[in-house]
């Protein structure tokens, strides 16, 4: 098997990366209002948010993909395979990120809220200056490991025809009849993408740790 057989696989790389980052970004942003609703004083809002999180996380990602692409996509809301994949995985990561943020938020010492109240900082400054930075700092390692998980999850998008790594791997294995080698290389590419993410997260974490550790 030559490099010429393997190079076409790399055409899928930008799609895998785009899908991963797009979905993660949606999740990281949408997770915040979802958490805000989850922590809200209003009971209906809290119930709604909890229901959304449970339903989104309870259904397998591949099924979400089918619901959005074949369900909504045919007829109601014409959508490209890539668009459907970003939307579905973005939705799933929003629910998961909301849970990651919630865990991080719960770890903030109650004294931080009290000091903010005593200093009269007000709700907005308490959130933006005090609570959010500490929450993100705590959420960082879990978010990074979720990002790696999400990157691998994007492989399901090949089932609806998104031309990402696994899609091309599948194509090449059928062209060359060398499934083992081809899929081993595809696997290796996933590992190679995950390494810098893990490495960066560890560096950022130990930098922040050194700054604030007691």
């Amino acid at each position, binding site marked *: 098997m030559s490099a010429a057989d393997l190079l076409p696989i790399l055409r899928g790389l930008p799609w895998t990366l785009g899908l991963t980052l797009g979905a993660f970004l949606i999740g990281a942003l949408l997770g915040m209002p979802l958490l805000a609703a989850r922590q809200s004083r209003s009971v209906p809002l809290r119930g709604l948010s909890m229901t959304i999180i449970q339903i989104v996380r309870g259904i397998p990602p591949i099924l979400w993909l089918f619901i959005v692409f074949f369900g909504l996509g045919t007829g109601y809301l014409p959508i490209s395979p890539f668009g459907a994949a970003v939307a579905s995985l973005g939705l799933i990561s929003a629910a998961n990120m909301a849970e990651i943020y919630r865990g991080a938020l719960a770890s903030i010492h109650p004294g931080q809220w009290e000091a903010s109240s005593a200093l*009269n900082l007000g709700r907005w400054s308490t959130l933006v200056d005090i609570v959010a930075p500490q929450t993100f700092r705590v959420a960082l390692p879990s978010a990074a490991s979720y990002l790696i998980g999400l990157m691998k999850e994007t492989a399901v998008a090949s089932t609806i025809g998104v031309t990402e790594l696994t899609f091309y791997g599948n194509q090449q294995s059928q062209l060359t009849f060398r499934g083992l080698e081809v899929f081993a290389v595809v696997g290796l590419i996933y590992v190679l993408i995950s390494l810098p993410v893990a490495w960066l997260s560890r560096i950022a974490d130990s930098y922040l740790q050194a700054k604030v550790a007691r």
Partner: protein
Amino acid sequence: MGGAGYCVQGEGPNMTDRGYEKSVAAARGVRLVEEPAIAGAPKRPLIQLDNLSKRYGGHTVLDSIDLEVMSGEVVAIIGPSGSGKSTLLRCINYLEPPDGGFVTIGDITLSAAMPASSTELARLRRSVGMVFQSFNLFPHMTVLRNISLAQERVLGRSRKEAEERSMQLLKRVGLGDKAGQYPARCSGGQQQRVAIARSLALDPQVMLFDEPTSALDPELGLEVLAVMRELAETGMTMIVVTHEMSFAENVSDTVMIMADGRIVEKGPSTEVMRNPQHERTKRFLRAVHDR
């Protein structure tokens, strides 16, 4: 309930009328405006608690507390744990909203009967600084930022103004060289002194201290107590919940002993500490001295 209040300095013949006038005004939700000080006229208390109560479930933590604190007075609150000392302190700045009674600080009165609006809370807290047992510095900010942030957000000072004031205060608490450090790099005593500077930076009229040295080993506690003594000498009004008996006796003007959510005894510090009248006070002080 008036029986609980010991005669504090500055209390004049006018006091009863004034107290009545105030509670009537408070009951009607009217805020009294601070009158200009007239020479010879009795001073109005800076802080007045009327019939203050707090319950958790069926448990009464504060049982109709009446208290007046004059401007410049240093009050030490001592007593066994669970007696409501900290809760009393936290009700004064509404960290715990009381269930009954009135809190008056300067010219603002809040009634527990009506839920306080955020504007009212902000006005009340504007004049009250608080120092916690566990310091509660913001760990993700430098010492300088810890002290400057609220000045910018609450008082609208520019960053430059705020940092100048912060540096001035840091020097006053003996930490001029720590401005760029993160709290984690400071000892407990240093962190507590930063916390004091952080509160002072907002120019409060009164400072509340909730067991400020209880989380510190004795040596580090001393440097915090030294700062508090200096603060008391500058005329700051202070209410200090403490287990430091020498602070209560030597620095504070007034000592108040609490047990079971009530004020058991209150009076000039040396008198209460050396010659307690109430049986509960005697028992508590004996236990402290026997340690």
